[in-house]
């Protein structure tokens, strides 16, 4: 840290919104910028002001990181592909007369509620513009929920369907592909 009050306050405001690695990197760049202006005969306060003006506002930085975050991109990808996977399952369930399957009513209700929560979490992450940590938490929660939903519907399909028809197989493949994507992506988002 550069030990300048203005710069320390700026970094403290970013600290609540960005991951620690990003903050360390910004602190290094900001320190170099500050030193550059200090070397050009500016007094410490002026050098700090110039460095901060050059760097951009807290809002600009937080927005740039959030918009380009892997979590936001993953949320958009999952939301974009969701209707296709949902349509595949809807086709399989309708053609397989799923209303006759021995799935308890409360389980259907929990599934529906979880689906709504997952969509809400992913929509929050996809729309996030300036709060990196919140966007990351939302997509992780949405991704974990999606894994549970895909797992539940796959198990139900395997156990409850009277026979495996091609629509069911196609829907299962779509869910497995999404599970694979989610399992690959979530660890990268956690470490970002």
């Amino acid at each position, binding site marked *: 840290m550069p030990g300048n009050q203005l710069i320390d306050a700026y970094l403290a405001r970013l600290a609540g919104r960005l991951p620690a690695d*990003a903050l360390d990197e910004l602190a*290094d*760049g900001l320190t170099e910028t500050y030193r550059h202006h200090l070397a050009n005969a500016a007094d410490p306060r002026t050098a700090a002001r110039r460095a901060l003006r050059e760097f951009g506002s807290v809002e*600009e*930085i937080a927005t*740039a*990181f959030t918009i380009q975050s892997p979590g936001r991109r993953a949320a958009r990808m999952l939301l974009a592909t969701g209707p296709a996977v949902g349509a595949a399952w809807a086709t399989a369930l309708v053609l397989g007369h799923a209303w006759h399957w021995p799935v308890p009513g409360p389980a259907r209700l929990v599934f529906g509620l979880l689906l709504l929560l997952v969509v809400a979490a992913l929509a929050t992450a996809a729309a996030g513009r300036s709060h990196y940590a919140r966007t990351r938490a939302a997509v992780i929660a949405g991704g974990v929920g999606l894994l549970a939903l895909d797992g539940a519907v796959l198990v139900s399909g395997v156990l409850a369907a009277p026979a495996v028809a091609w629509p069911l197989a196609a829907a299962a493949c779509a869910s497995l592909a999404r599970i694979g994507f989610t399992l690959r992506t979530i660890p*990268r988002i956690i470490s970002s």
Partner: protein
Amino acid sequence: MKEAQALKGHLDTLLLAVLDSGPRHGYAVIEALREDSGGRFDLPTGTVYPALHRLEHAGLVTSTWSVVDGRRRRTYGLTPAGQAQLHTERATWRDFAATITSLLEPAPCPATS
């Protein structure tokens, strides 16, 4: 202002080009962008860092951490995929620039006898 926006539209390629000469840390990347653009690059410099992160997630650059003067420093370098991407972008840009130049430059006057 128009120039800055145009540069922003090509930020990914410019970052790859700056890293073509060797690994650099974030501030050095920004300095190179500013110097190589003759001072025309005037985006908020803090916004260059997330662009570097995005290139890393795309597999075009890689980064390593070190400690300098007690501070953690992240240094970026091109991956083979990044070099290939830069090569493609350069060729595309040269074709594009040649086409636009041939359309914008006045044709030489035909010789008269």
